[in-house]
């Protein structure tokens, strides 16, 4: 560890270019999120599940992934993550509007089900917790093939940790000390159910003790803290050091999805208090403070992203639907 007064981006070796690219992803994610809610109200996107508030967690995790080399098993909230891994705003909008060229599912899956074999982003269902067993299986596969240096990152909400499937994934990874980093995006609610009714312990990371793996808690709104912990965990995994359960504490700034009304279960004060801790504002502030970017440059970036989102929106709306003739394609190989 280096002394505390070294700014984290220097300590972590994050270049100016990488930081600004990261900020751009965060902004693009939030702007796309905004646009999706609008499209939803317009009847053009039937379903939105928000990433707003989770951007630092997801960007920090994405930075720790070797794209196309490590496997990533995301969940429905990981829009920032997959954008950082290489899905474009247009890809996201094609997915949300279920167009033929949606790279994740060709218009078959509901929004939020990211997939790309090329990027090694594994296709998921909507069933929370059911995907971590796949992460363990990948780890067994590397071992069977004698391949070293690849890690798997599996992500999920804290609510998912109650599922039996989640437990079995961690159990197998723990027994075999597989190269898997389990990332919990703990936003303190599973839809409406608050933490103390979904998880029996104050920190999800406390569960690690039962699986023979390290548990780590970080501030999920601090992109550097997340990156540092995720990077260490991924490196440990790649080097045969076994699995980690990494808990990123954060908050979603919007309702669970376009089908949810969060006023029933969260006070406006609580939501506002977290808005004040918006991870994008925080990252911008840091970058400005450390002279990496100016407020004007950020504004320019935001304008640029907005133009990209506008163009992508038009392109996605104009994009073709999948053909009805294709409805049964790919049921069997």
């Amino acid at each position, binding site marked *: 560890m280096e002394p505390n007064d070294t700014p984290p981006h220097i300590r972590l070796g994050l270049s100016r270019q990488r930081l600004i690219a990261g900020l751009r992803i965060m902004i693009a994610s939030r702007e796309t999120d905004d646009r999706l809610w609008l499209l939803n109200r317009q009847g053009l996107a039937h379903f939105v599940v928000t990433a707003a508030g989770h951007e630092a967690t997801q960007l920090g995790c994405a930075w720790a992934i070797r794209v196309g080399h490590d496997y990533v098993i995301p969940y429905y909230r990981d829009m920032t993550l997959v954008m950082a891994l290489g899905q474009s705003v247009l890809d996201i909008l094609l997915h949300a509007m279920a167009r033929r060229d949606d790279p994740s599912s060709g218009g078959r899956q509901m929004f939020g089900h990211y997939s790309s074999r090329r990027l090694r982003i594994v296709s998921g269902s909507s069933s929370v917790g059911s995907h971590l067993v796949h992460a363990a299986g990948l780890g067994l596969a590397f071992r069977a093939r004698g391949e070293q240096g690849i890690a798997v990152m599996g992500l999920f909400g804290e609510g998912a940790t*109650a599922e*039996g499937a989640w437990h079995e994934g961690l159990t197998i990874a723990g027994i075999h000390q597989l190269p898997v980093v389990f990332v919990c995006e703990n936003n303190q609610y599973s*839809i409406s*159910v608050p933490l103390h009714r979904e998880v029996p312990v104050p920190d999800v990371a406390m569960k690690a003790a039962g699986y023979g793996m390290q548990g780590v808690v970080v501030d999920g709104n601090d992109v550097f803290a997340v990156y540092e912990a995720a990077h260490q965990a991924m490196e440990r995994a790649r080097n045969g050091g076994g699995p980690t359960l990494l808990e990123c504490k954060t908050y979603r700034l919007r309702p669970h999805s376009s089908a949810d009304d969060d006023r029933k279960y969260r006070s406006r004060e609580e939501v506002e208090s977290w808005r004040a801790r918006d991870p994008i504002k925080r990252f911008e502030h840091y970058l400005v403070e450390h002279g990496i970017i100016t407020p004007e440059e950020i504004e320019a970036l935001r304008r640029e992203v907005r133009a990209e989102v506008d163009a992508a929106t038009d392109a996605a709306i104009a994009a073709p639907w999948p053909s009805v003739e294709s409805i049964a394609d790919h049921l069997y190989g």
Partner: protein
Amino acid sequence: MPVMTFIEAIRSALHDAMAADDRIMVLGEDVAVKGGVFLATEGLLARFGEHRVIDMPIAECGIVGAAIGASLHGLLPVAEIQFADYIYPAIDQILNEAARFRYRSNGDWSCPIVVRAPCGAGIHGALYHSQSVERLFISTPGIKVVMPSTPFDAKGLLIAAIHDPDPVIFFEHKQLYRLVRGDVPEGIYREPIGKAAVRRSGSDMSVFSYGLMVHHSLTAAEELAAEGIDVEVIDLRTLAPLDREAILSSVKKTGRALIVHEDVLTGGIGGEIAALIAEHAFEYLDAPVRRLASPDLFATPFADPLEEHFMLNPQKIAAAMRDLARY
């Protein structure tokens, strides 16, 4: 009599039943504070308190298993699975546990639970929010499977299910929730589990259906009536045990049978019904038994044109009726 939507009827059943019998409890994901993602359980927490209306962690096996455990102490738990698509992790508890408690203990224990699960497509739910899964539950003895099509039945059958001595899986088609309205009595009443209902009496063919498809079949039957073909529409209501009597007597009268369901064709309940008819009403048949179902996919894709292509509708049903009438 008040007019209610389907979802209001479900809510009314829960309110009235819980008020009348304090052994009833409700448990599931988001059922308490939020009142359920479809608001089926709205108001129950305020009225009956957090010990009888319980927000559960995301653990379907745990939810059904806890319902089973509570029932062993004499309670009448109503578990909610948020979407039928997520009932799979609870299948072991439903088919291997709840269904067998009474039998395996030679009558000593029993499991009077209800598992409610919203199901069905047509609301842009795609592969994991629109499944029909009833086929997986009709073949294990010891449980009952109910799927109402009207608000009246929704309430009466749900109350009957709660007081039934056996585990009951209660499927609610999501598209019905706000689509259909009807007279629903206040207070407690029960519709019989195991009895089909004749929704339209006719002489030229029998259509067997349930849930949302009953409504589409009735619309189609009216269309056919205008063409001079008189279709009988039977609402099965209970899928296990099937009302064999009603099925066979209808087909013996009409000589023609069409089974319509949203669940997959291959391995769907239509096969069982067709087999019953083929075996026990063979000599009465004037035409092959026909089945009309969604395409053999596990659920609808998300894209609008694909979803539309996937869904059965009155036109497709009318076409199948015409085809059978012409045979």
